[in-house]
């Protein structure tokens, strides 16, 4: 099987996060900004997208909002699971109506028994 060499290149020279942001990245930032506006406040960034001028700045915004979308969905999923777990626990709890009634009767009795006013103990 032939082994084809991939041409080597200078990664440092190729890399330029200060490159002016191109039209594609601007569009991606705009799309993510629209998505960010739908996120709960605690998941939003404090980045002003109109101030994004370079590829590096765009990348940082893209990273934050992408992660925020994932986090928001994960938080919602966790909340759903907790809700399901609580409902399941409530439906599994043993039936305790007798105990509850006795308890409330004692409470009622306690409430209704008047305190003696002549100093004698009950």
């Amino acid at each position, binding site marked *: *099987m*032939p*082994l*084809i*060499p*991939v*041409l*080597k*290149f200078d*990664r*440092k020279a*190729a*890399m*330029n*996060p200060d*490159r002016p942001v*191109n*039209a*594609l*990245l601007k*569009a*991606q930032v*705009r*799309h*993510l900004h*629209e*998505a960010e506006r*739908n996120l709960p406040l605690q998941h939003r960034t404090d980045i002003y997208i109109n101030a994004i001028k370079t*590829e*590096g700045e*765009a*990348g*940082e915004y*893209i*990273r934050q909002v*992408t*992660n925020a*979308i*994932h986090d928001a*969905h994960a938080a919602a999923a966790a909340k759903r699971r907790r809700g399901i777990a609580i409902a399941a626990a409530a439906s599994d709890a043993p039936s305790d109506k007798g105990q509850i009634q006795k308890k409330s009767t004692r409470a009622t009795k306690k409430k209704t028994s008047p305190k003696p006013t002549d100093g004698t103990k009950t």
Partner: protein
Amino acid sequence: MPPGLDNLKHIVVLMMENRSFDHMLGSLAAVNSNIDGVTAALSNPDTTGAPVKPQPLAEFQSQLDPDPDHHFPAVDLQIFGGDTTPTRAPNMQGFIKSYFNQQKDVGHSQKIMYYFAQNQLPVLTTLALEFAVFNRWFASIPGPTICNRAFAHYGTSFGRVDMNPIDINEPFKAIYDRLIAANHTAKLYYYDATSSTMEVANLLQHEPELFGTYQQFLSDCESGSLPEYSFVEPNYNDHDTDSGEAVASDQHPDHNIQAGELFIASVYNAIKQNPDLWQSTALLVVYDEHGGIYDHVVPPACPPDQFTASANDTGTGQPFAFDRLGVRVPAILISPWIPKGTVINRVFDHASIPATITKFFLGSYSPRSPRETNADVFIEPNTAPVDPARNLLSLDAMRTDCPDFDVS
């Protein structure tokens, strides 16, 4: 049934950015006369009227600056040469005129005609010569990235020709949702969160669980847990990571072409290095659109979509019925079941992607857009009878001579 189709369990699509067929693969016409690439007869007039021929002088970076315009009005000029009359015919004579508009520099505008020599792109050209190269794969619309990628995900751009977020108001589901609803598996792999995906407005925002990272793609290949359909996106921006610099690999101007070559080779190697995966996977490497760069093949008319872009939306003063394809792009199908040197002349566009995946994994399905319904498929469904003239995975035995790429 053909063993190539019998064995096929995974289809992977890697979609790169903004390079035309002639720019990347045009040199191969000199190597294989069946490949419709650059010839001495081709030219475009510059703004002085002088004919300028394509030349193998493309550079890896810093040449196509500013980024050639590839929005709908500019592509209209590129295809129709500036003719705006109702009876106009496409002539592919407007590329230099279009690029001149950006900098008003005659000499610089001619560079839109430059293409890469074969030895500058060892990965892409080797893949094109070793497997199946498509002479007639076009962008879905004569316009920019977001709409063209939408065709790859939904089979339509829902009437959009611009770069704004697309509202999905119609019932055409993304290919991933169709597969998952039918208990199949599908995933989009973006490079990392800093690069993210170009499909933000709908899929990332509403279904982030569809997404994984490129590192996950690599480990899924290694472990054999790749889904049935995978869509891979390259790195769209230069950024630092915990493990060093991540150079943009999408090949969108002005990103480094060689970084993209390395990325394509890495995706190929990841599949090939797992023998079970290699024999059961077809990899399509394709570009989303031509990026404003010269190509000589006239995009054909096609059956219209059910949407129309208004004259205001197109920016040309004319509406667009999605009845003409965009400019030709490189597209290569890779599998050890494909004969070496295969060249395909049937017409495809990005709607062929959901069309193919749907027909192969689901069979019949509706609703689908008219453009997708009419799109050709690049992998035949594995149901009898299989037309041998159309089946690209046609070998009776798997090849053992497929190349490896040295990415060290």
